[in-house]
Every structure is written in structure tokens, then in C-alpha cells.
């Protein structure tokens, strides 16, 4: 089971969904904080959902306040990078570029893509964590007391 979990994780990295930052987070996980990474992920998704909502509303309004959008996206990018959500981060960067260029169309397109990536990652991670929990503490975590 653990191997399976490991494989899934590896594929996430390989596919570029996650980057080294995620590994950093994993290193922070230990006996005292066995579910740290999962907790952080949950927090991230909760918070980013809120951000996405805000951006959605802003875009729907039609009035493209690029500054505001850029601000939102900056925040979004910050948390995405912190958690190592690589693809999401890429989309964020693109979005911001469009914002700076004042390209509303580009913003919309990118945002759509971003949402897609975001939800994909979310699913994958949820699956991953679920398995990981089932598999029991990872070898790394299973340190002799």
C-alpha cells in the first residue's frame, strides 16, 4: 500500500502537479505532526476556493479591474507556491501577465484553465492523502521512538 502511495505521489511530481516545495512540506511532517501536509493542503484548498470565488465574481462583473484581479492572483500565487502546486502556479503567473497587459480575454481564458488545474490537483491530492492514511504512517514517519 505504501508503495502505491509512493507511486501516486511520484506521478504527481512527474506530471508537474507538485514541485519541490511539496517535498519541503513533507519534511516538516513528523511524529508530532503526522498529518501536517494534509492539513496544509486542506487549508490551501479552502482558502484558494475563496480566492477563486472572488476572482470569479470580479470577472463576472465584467468590469475588468486589473489591479484588483492582479492582487487576488498575487495572493493565490503565493499560497500555491507555498504548497508546491506547480501547475496552478504557472497559470497564476500567466493570468497576472494578462492582467498587466490589460488583456481581458487572456485573463478569462487563463482563469478558466487555472480553475481546471486547481480542481484536478485537489482531486489528486485528496486521493493521495486518503491512500496515505490508509497505508498508515509512511516509512519516513515511522521512526523508532
Amino acid at each position, binding site marked *: 500500500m505504501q508503495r502505491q502511495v509512493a507511486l501516486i505521489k511520484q506521478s504527481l511530481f512527474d506530471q508537474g502537479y507538485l514541485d519541490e*516545495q511539496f517535498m*519541503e512540506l513533507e519534511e*516538516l511532517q513528523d511524529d508530532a505532526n503526522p498529518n501536517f501536509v494534509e492539513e496544509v493542503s486542506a*487549508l*490551501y484548498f479552502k*482558502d484558494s476556493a475563496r480566492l477563486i470565488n472572488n476572482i470569479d465574481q470580479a470577472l463576472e462583473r465584467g468590469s475588468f479591474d486589473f489591479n484588483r484581479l492582479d492582487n487576488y492572483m*498575487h495572493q493565490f500565487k503565493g499560497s500555491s*507556491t507555498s504548497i508546491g502546486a506547480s501547475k496552478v502556479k504557472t497559470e497564476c503567473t500567466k493570468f497576472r501577465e494578462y492582467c498587466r497587459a490589460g488583456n481581458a480575454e487572456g485573463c478569462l481564458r487563463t482563469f478558466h484553465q487555472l480553475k481546471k488545474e486547481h480542481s484536478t490537483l485537489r482531486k489528486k491530492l485528496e486521493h493521495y492523502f486518503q491512500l496515505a492514511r490508509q497505508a498508515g504512517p509512511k516509512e519516513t514517519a515511522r521512526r523508532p521512538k
Partner: protein
Amino acid sequence: MMNPSHGRGLGSAGGSSSGRNQGGGGGGETVVEMFPSGLRVLVVDDDPTCLMILERMLMSCLYEVTKCNRAELALSLLRKNKHGFDIVISDVHMPDMDGFKLLEHVGLEMDLPVIMMSADDSKSVVLKGVTHGAVDYLIKPVRMEALKNIWQHVVRKRRSEWSVPEHSGSIEETRDRQQQQHRGGNAAISGGEDAVDDNSSSVNEGNNWRSNSRKRKDEDGEEQGDDKDEDASNLKKPRVVWSVELHQQFVAAVNQLGVEKAVPKKILELMNVPGLTRENVASHLQKYRIYLRRLGGVSQHQGNLNNSFMTGQDASFAPLSTLNGFDLQALAVTGQLPAQSLAQLQAAGLGRPTMVSKSGLPVSSIVDERSIFSFDNSKTRFGEGLGHHHGQQQPQQQPQMNLLHGVPTGLQQQLPMGNRMSIQQQIAAVRAGHSVQNSGMLMQSLPRGPPPMLTSSQSSIRQPMLSNRIPERSGFSGRNNIPESSRVLPTGYTNHLTTQHSSSSLAYNNFQTELPVNSFPLASAPGLSAVPVRKTNSYQEEVNSSEAGFATPSYDMFTTRQNDWDLRSIGIAFDSHQDAESAAFSNSEAYSSSSMSRNNNTTVAATEHVRNHQQQPHPGMVPHHQVYADGNSGSVRVKSERVAADSAAMAFHEQYSNQEDLMSALLKQEGIAPVDGEFDFDAYSIDNIPV
């Protein structure tokens, strides 16, 4: 955090924190031992994900973490528990408050190191972080490695503050010493740290003060700032290192008070940094004023003044005046400055011509003082000098700045009385970073007697300041009186010098004291201030007499003054007087003190040297050197001054460079020789550029 460092002298307010760091007082070594575990970090970020991750990371580093997702909340936390944190990490983009604003607040109010972080890695933002005083800038995603080493910032900051606290801490020691000295010299210009006021008062005491001041200066100087240069001499009081945070705090205080009205005393109170003495603030203020002036495109009146000063006695004063003038003018302008303020301003002005606006006050006060002091002559001159320089108070600062620089050195030598001024001026000049100018000025003036007044601005500034100082500044007292007249002298220097010198000297001295604060190598300034009014009026008298002869009197003065003055120390000797005042000058004072003590002879020598140089030792530079060179072995920055008078002058500049305070750096960049390295403003450096 700061406490621990300050704790040393301060009584370890940071005792609690020091536990970690070093138990306060220790020096940096102790701190290192304790670090980094237990480091108390406050993390501020509106992003909960980041916050959580950072918290986890910091905890793995064995730090004590406090999370905060709102800047306002963070500030209140910090305020409630001033010494409860060692370092702050803050995000740049936050909804309720800009990260940089928080950074400024923290730096100002708590003087804690702040690390900025952001996903934004654009150079402009990073630069902004630096200019606002952040000790570091992390790009998100933040990695563990980056966080592991944040303790270095705490140590670094503590170290720089130790210099200050050293004052404080050592203030006590110094104070004792000083007291002893005082007793002996009575106005031992309290090493700046302990009590700025103490210094001033003691200084004013008069003859003794000179010696005392000198001593104090040494003590203070040493304590104050990092004697970068001075370490060697170590007599000076430690220099206060004006870290970015400290500077931010300072700037905030200044802005709060209003540049014009900002007096070291009030600034000190506002800043509420343990271990920081009024002298420190004063000298820093001086530098800052110079800097501002520079920014404001201060006409180089002062420069001119300085030059003029250099040439003639008046010139010598001028420099001083200029420096002082600016400050003084600022004071004068504000008119509001009560004598005290003036004094303070003067002190500040001495150190900082830049603070024109603030100095405006001083100026006015000085002006007022003048009347009090009987500067009358100086006043006018001063005003002139100042006027030129100041024009408006600060913008013109620059000219003055130079003066100050030059003044200290130049002045010191010359006037025994004038020296006072000169010393002060010098100090101021030195401080101002004009270094050269003043020195030049001073040099010239030295013979003249009243310091050539720091390159005009300085001198002028000084004077007013001095005058003010004198009255209030206990330490400066000597100076204040004179400041006006003596320093300002730029124009009528010669004549004035005599008379002015007294006043200027006083003023000078006052300035000096003030100057020292800054890290001005006061040594040079001391020359100016050395004349230290501290001695308070007694000096003036001396000066006056000496003034008559200026050229010679200065020497006489020095010798007589010798109390503390090691005029040799360069102008600083004057500063010694100033010590009281210029606790801040400490640097310069240190020089002066050292020099003073040393030298009566040296001073004379210095003066002579100066005299020779007088005429223009090198614009501004020389004077300083001279002054310093002679007497000072001055731990105080005067270093350059110490350089053999002529060479000293040159050396002076160099020395300043060493000092590398932020101010100095800034000023240097600006083209103004940094007075003292006391200012360690990184920020300044940056600012210089644009300027």
C-alpha cells in the same frame, strides 16, 4: 531582543529575552551561544496556508513562533509586549496594511529586525524592502534553509545596538566615570549615553567639562556606535550603529515631531530605544539633516560658506554655522524651538545639518540663544551662514553639512573658544559627514579661534545649536551660548570669531556634543565642539579671549582647555567639551575626549596644524583631519582628524569612509564626506544614490 543587547547596560530590560540572546550584555558572543533556538519570531501573513507552513518551519528550527494574519494585530501584539519578540517576518502584500508600513512601524517603535517576504520577486519590491529597512527579503515559497538562518539578523542587530547600549550599559559605567570626571572636570560631558542631559549639564559646567566631556566622550563614544574605526582607539564611546530599524524609528520620530521641530531629546523619547543617548540621536539628527539637505538640493551655500570659512576665520565659523546654521536655522525658523530645543537641535544640528527642518528649530533656538548667549554677532552671521545654507532649513543643508564636517575639525583646532565651536562644528561637520568641509573649515578657523565653523552650514548650525544646547543641553551648554556667534561666523568670522568664538565655541561645543552622537567622527568635530561649550561658558570666555587672536587663541584655548580637550584629538578635543553635549558625538567626542585629554598639546599642535592648514586645508576635509589628527587619537571617528593635521585632514575623510555609517555612506555618496560612520543606515546608502 533588543533588550538583551541593551540589557547590558540598560539593565537588561531584555533580560527575559536576553535569556536567549545573550543575557544582555554580553556582547555578541553570548548571544550566539543561545541562538538560535528559542528565538521568538512573529510571523505576519494574511495567507493562512503560508502562515501555517511558516509556523511549522519555524518550529522545526526550534524557534518560538507566534502567528498573526493581520498587520494591525501584529503591531498591537508587539506594542503590548515590546520585548516579547526577537524578530518579525512579514508578508509584503496584506489587505489591512502594507507590509512596508508595518516594517516601518516595527523598526521605529520596537526596533526589531524585520524580514519581508513575498511571492513577488521583482527587484523594485526587493529594493523597497531594503530601503525601508528590512533586514532580509525572502521570496516565496520560503524554504527551511532560509528560515534557519534568520537568527543572524537578530544577532547582528543586537550587536549594533550594543554599541548603543554599551552606552547605556556602559553609560552607567561611563556615568560613573564621568561623574568622576565631572567632579574633576565638572562637566564631563557625559558620554552621551548616559545622559545626554547629564552630559550637557556637566559639560556646561565649564572648564572641567572639557576634560570631562572629553572623557565622557570617550566613554560615550566608545559606547555609542560601533567604533568602527575607533575600535582601535577605543577610547571613544561606542558608536551607535544606526541600523535600518533604528533609523526607521528615528525617521518616524522625526517626522512625528516635524523635521523642524525635531530635537534630539524628543526624538530620543519617541524612539524609546534603550541605550540610545541623546547624543546619539543628536548626531544622527545632524547627519540626517545633512542628508535631507542634500536631498533637497540644498544649495551648497554651505559649501560656499565653508569655503569662505576656510579662508577666513569667518569661514571657519561659517562651516560650523552652516552646519549649525542649518540646523539652527531650522530652529530659528521654527522659532519655536525653545532654547532647549535649540540646544538639542544644535546638537543635532551639529551632527546633522541635514535636519534642517528640524534644525530649523534649532536654528531658531539658536538664534534665540544667541541673544541669550550674546552671540549677537554670531547670530547674524550665523543667520547668514545659515541663511545661506539653510535657506530653508534643510534643503540647504548641504552646505552646512560640509561645514560641520569641516568645522569640527577646523574649529577645533582653532579656537580654543572658537574651537569649541569648531570642534563642535567639526564634530558636527564630521558628523555631518561633511567631514571634509568642516575640517577644512575648522582647520582654518582653528587658528582663528572659533571654528571656521564647519563649513558654514555647520558652523552656523552649530552655533545656534550650540547656543541652545548650552542652555539646555547641559552637555552642550558650552556650546550653545556660543553657537550663535561663534559658529556662525562665516562671514564676519574673524571678528566674530573672537567674540563669536566664544559663543560659537560654545555653540560649537554644543554641536560637537551633538555631533558626536552621530558617529561623526567627532573627533573632528570635537574640534569644533571641543571648544565645548560644555565647559560652558567658561570656555567661551576663553574662547573669546582666544578668539581675539583666533589664530593663536585657538591654540591657547586648547591648551587651556585641555581639560578634556585633547584638542589634538582634533577638534574633537573640542568635542570633548562637547562630550557633554555630544554624547552623541561620542565619536567625535571620543576623539576629542581622547584628544583632549591628551592633548592639550596636541590641540595646540593641532591647532597649529590647523592653522597652517587653515587656509584651506582641503576643502573641508583637511580641517577635519587636522583637527583630528592632532589631538585625537580620538577614538572618535575623528580618526581622520587625527591624522596629522594636514594629512589628517585627508585621512579624515578616509576615516570617515571607514565609519561607514549609513549616514556617512549616504553622505558620501552624496558627495558629502560622511561624518561618522555612526550612521549605519543601509537605507541611507540607497537613498544616496537617487539623490
